[in-house]
């Protein structure tokens, strides 16, 4: 038989003024199973709490109901009090007779009746409460960072400096990401490589960081504090342990005209290559698709396949037989920093997007995108920093820049603003003027969004000091007329149609998430938006977390981000993880779901509705080891306690602890006094 104690609080006059607290205590005291019922001026005060503790000891209470304010206010207080008196804290609950009763009603009788009802429901519930234990989860103090651009680099360094071990996975042969391709950065015009490459070297040399370049995340299992990550290391065909980065193999390579990814196809590279001279690690890879050796082998040539790089290597590091390898690492937290890719205006588009036929679907020569312009403007680029047209190597005297290509264009499939284009276009016009003094830059824009420190001043400088001509309007059409490109737009400020003759056109194309992001998100059970950007857990208060505990976000994988934003997010994610790692164990409320394997029919409706991917499938075997059935199991480390699984379960075999069907039913049953 239950022995419940009911404690009715007056909250000074806050409750007592409208609710007859003595009557509430008296009525509740009459209920079967209630062993003790009193009212008191301030239940949350020390003497009030003492009354509860005393009653637990003296009346041997099996449950406590405090009829007072909102549980959001004082549930923790009263549970702690019960705990210190030796009663399991989860046997204590509150009835909200202040916010939900005394404060919103004036009729004393009606309010008192209601308070009695509310307290009665909770008494009936607490009779069915069972002791619960706080969940403790061990934490592996290692972090995985996915993506080695500036966001990933920053997160890895912050974590490593904070004492955590870090595994940094980068799919390209070198870390550095898009930032390593940039010429100079806004709004300070400092050289991108000059500020980035020291950070890259730091990553390489940091004792706490294990760098895995040319690798990808294959599988993710486990949960916060306890992830198991399987990583695929792609075959470089170069033995990293032996290679000393001398570059002889590249000099010997006979395939010299492969379009360079790093130079955005404006420059060439060899088949065995490092993407750029400052690459980290400085170990080449063989691009199988263009390598003469592998091509010959694929055709069935038995001997005399190329092999020039192997001959040239004094360390014997070239290994044509190398294969992909897999390693599994245990980590406690994951940072996703996979960055972005640029929308292209071509005819072939991923589902949901359309190209720009009115701009020639990318077939007009000398129409390039922003990253290509960065390579032209970069001192380490294919033109050594000279602005030259790709088609004929001439210096363009008239460049037109188009903002919002793809962005803010629902008709092409992207309605969002790509955020960084206004700034980098202004930067491009400046770099152009600094390099081509008699050149004229014209920018077509819709709005200037320069909302950062020093940003608007920067755009103004492009216009006021560096002579960029800004035309407010979108371009309707672009076509070739001999060597010039006709750009047909409208100046909405002067109200006139304009056709500008350009030698080169630079498109500020939209920022999109990396291809394959959905598959990665699914591996992490993290959610993503309609465009494939990762969703943050809360747009304001949890901007670098995902709704999967232990998975964090940094940089442009979450939305278009510039460098300062990406770095700030990375540091924030690192700080969150260091906070997580500061504890030996994670403590969680035991309000999680639990499956009764005997009842579970294995329909997995719960698996489908669970927002957290907390449901796993386990095999039930008989004593001989024969498979009996496959049932659902809830991972308490992942479950957040929403209870959607329970409401969905047809066989009623999953229960949310603290809110079991029995508990709710008894509350409802108490409706009729």
């Amino acid at each position, binding site marked *: 038989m239950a022995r419940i104690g009911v404690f009715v609080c007056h909250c000074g006059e806050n409750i007592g003024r409208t609710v007859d607290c003595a009557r509430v205590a008296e009525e509740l005291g009459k209920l079967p199973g209630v062993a003790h019922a009193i009212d008191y001026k301030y239940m949350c005060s020390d003497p009030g709490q003492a009354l509860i503790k005393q009653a637990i000891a003296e009346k041997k209470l099996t449950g406590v109901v405090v009829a007072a304010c909102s549980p959001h206010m004082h549930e923790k207080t009263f549970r702690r009090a019960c705990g210190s008196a030796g009663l399991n804290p989860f046997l204590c609950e509150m009835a909200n007779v202040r916010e939900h009763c005394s404060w919103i009603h004036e009729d004393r009788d009606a309010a008192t009746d209601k308070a009695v009802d509310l307290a009665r429901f909770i008494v009936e519930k607490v009779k069915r409460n069972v002791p619960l234990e706080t969940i403790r989860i061990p934490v592996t103090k290692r972090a995985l960072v996915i993506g080695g651009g500036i966001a990933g680099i920053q997160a890895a360094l912050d974590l490593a400096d904070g004492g955590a071990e870090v595994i940094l996975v980068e799919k390209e042969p070198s870390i550095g990401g898009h930032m390593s391709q940039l010429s100079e950065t806004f709004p300070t015009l400092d050289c991108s490589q000059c500020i980035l490459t020291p950070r890259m070297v730091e990553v390489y040399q940091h004792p706490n960081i294990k760098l895995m370049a040319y690798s990808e995340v294959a599988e993710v299992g486990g949960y916060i504090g306890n992830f198991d990550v399987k990583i695929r290391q792609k075959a470089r065909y170069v033995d990293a342990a032996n290679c000393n980065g001398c570059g002889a193999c590249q000099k010997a390579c006979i395939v010299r005209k492969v379009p360079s990814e790093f130079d955005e196809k404006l420059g060439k590279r060899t088949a065995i290559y490092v993407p750029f001279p400052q690459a980290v690690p400085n170990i080449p890879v063989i691009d199988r698709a263009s390598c003469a050796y592998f091509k010959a082998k694929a055709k069935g040539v038995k001997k005399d396949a190329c092999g020039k790089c192997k001959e040239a290597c004094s360390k014997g590091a070239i290994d044509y037989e190398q294969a992909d390898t897999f390693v599994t690492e245990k980590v406690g937290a994951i940072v996703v920093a996979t960055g972005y890719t640029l929308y292209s205006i071509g005819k072939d588009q991923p589902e949901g997007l359309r190209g720009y036929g009115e701009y020639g679907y990318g077939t007009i020569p000398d129409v390039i995108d922003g990253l290509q312009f960065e390579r032209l403007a970069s001192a380490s680029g294919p033109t050594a920093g000279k602005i030259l047209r790709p088609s004929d190597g001439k210096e363009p005297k008239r460049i037109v820049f188009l903002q919002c290509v793809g962005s803010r264009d629902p*008709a092409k499939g992207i309605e969002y603003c790509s955020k960084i284009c206004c700034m980098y276009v202004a930067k491009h016009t400046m770099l152009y003027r600094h390099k081509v003094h008699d050149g004229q830059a014209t920018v077509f824009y819709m709005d200037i969004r320069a909302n950062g420190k020093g940003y608007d001043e920067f755009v103004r400088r492009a216009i006021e000091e560096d002579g960029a001509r800004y035309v407010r*309007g979108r371009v309707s*059409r672009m076509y070739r007329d001999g060597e010039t490109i006709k750009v047909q*737009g409208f100046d909405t400020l002067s109200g006139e*149609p304009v056709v500008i003759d350009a030698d080169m056109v630079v498109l500020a194309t939209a920022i999109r998430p990396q291809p394959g992001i959905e598959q990665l998100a699914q591996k992490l059970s993290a959610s993503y938006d309609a465009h494939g950007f990762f969703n943050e857990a809360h747009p304001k208060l949890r901007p670098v977390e995902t709704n999967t505990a232990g998975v964090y976000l940094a940089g442009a994988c979450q939305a278009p981000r510039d460098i300062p934003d990406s770095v700030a997010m990375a540091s924030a994610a690192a700080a969150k993880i260091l906070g997580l790692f500061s504890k030996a164990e994670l403590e969680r409320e035991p309000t999680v779901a639990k499956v009764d394997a005997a009842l579970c029919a294995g329909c997995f409706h719960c698996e489908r509705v669970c927002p957290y991917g907390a449901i796993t499938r386990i095999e039930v075997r008989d004593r001989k080891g024969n498979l009996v059935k496959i049932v659902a199991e809830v991972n308490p480390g992942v479950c957040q306690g929403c209870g959607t699984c329970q409401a969905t379960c047809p066989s009623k075999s999953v229960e949310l602890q603290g809110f079991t069907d029995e508990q709710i039913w008894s509350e409802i049953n108490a409706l009729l006094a």
Partner: protein
Amino acid sequence: MNSMEPAHGGHGRPTLAEELRRATGRNPARCYQCGKCSAGCPMASETALRPHDVMRLVSQDRREELLAAESIWLCLTCETCVDRCPNECDPARTIDALREMASAEAPASVPRALAAFHRSFLDQVRLTGRLFELGLMAEYKLRSGALFADVTAAPGMVSRGKLGFVPHPIKGVKEVRRIFDACERANQEKP
């Protein structure tokens, strides 16, 4: 004011934008004035109001000004603006709807030549079920007063066998007349 009723422009009737939204199924407020429509409009160099100006005036509820504007009658309905609009507005359809409203509310503002052309055209179709181009020209010239404007045309047309003879009405001409009547009635019944 009942909050369930459509937005009003403070003058006791639905705003122009609201009316056009109902007529065209597209929300004129989507226009963010990028000017791409006007940049590609073949008539932009001739008209006082370009497509984006029309959308702007719609959003500002400047009804009288729009319905009296000659510009709405100069749209060629080439639909370039529709295809290139980044934000899925439909300036051409909006202009069509404005023309319909202008014909009903401010018939005097319809340019005489155009009104004459459309009237002659539709009268021909109502009369015979098909368009008889010689008849159209004759009627158009009488109505517009542009009697000698295209005087070179007809003789050459006839000698090239292009204008044919006055046709008999099609069998279903009554059916066609009923369609005209029904559509006109439906237009008048509109609130």
